[in-house]
């Protein structure tokens, strides 16, 4: 499922921490394809995945995801 209203900074935050999609996926417990699909805004993650991403990246969830203007 996609939603054009939902923006995300996942790729930027991941790059800042020098993490590959594979490493982030492993840490979160999802497939690398999930991370790729979220970054490319082809899929809206579930609340659980969003919270796990925030926890692994050490930022509040609203710093990763935001509603586009």
């Amino acid at each position, binding site marked *: 499922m996609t939603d054009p209203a939902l923006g995300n900074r996942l790729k930027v935050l991941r790059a800042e921490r020098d993490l*590959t999609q*594979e490493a982030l*996926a*492993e840490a979160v417990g*999802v497939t690398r*394809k*999930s991370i790729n699909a979220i970054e490319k805004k082809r899929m809206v993650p579930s609340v659980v995945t969003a919270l796990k991403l925030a926890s692994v990246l050490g930022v509040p969830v609203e710093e990763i995801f935001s509603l586009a203007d």
Partner: protein
Amino acid sequence: MSSTLMIKRMSKTTLWYVITWNIWFGALILEQFDILPQNSPLAIAADVIGFAAAISWFALLFRLSAMGRQVQKDAKLRSAFHDDFMDLAKRKAGRIGYFGALFSAAALAVLSDIAGLSGLLVAELVILASVNAYLVSWLVFIGREDADD
């Protein structure tokens, strides 16, 4: 084993599973059309190829089952294989498979009336179309997301 590697292996095995199943089922369907004369070299070759495909299909089925057990045993793999992306892939493929079954059943119902196809043949063609719609769309969806690290 990482989930990426496991998905790659599963996709490859599923692709061969689809190919061998189509050859096997295709040979079965071909027999019912009575196109090839009985005991002709072509008919025998079709039988042999169909039989070989059926054996390969069973071997691939066992391999896929073994992979499924491996995923269930490993907590990390189990979690990854039930993530948002994999669930979405299953849902999308399921929807395409469902409509594949509906459309092929409707089209073949009309066609069987016109061309006088047997009920067994229609049932086989509907199974072939719907299973192919599900598995091929799953493979396409799974294969589409590539890394860009």
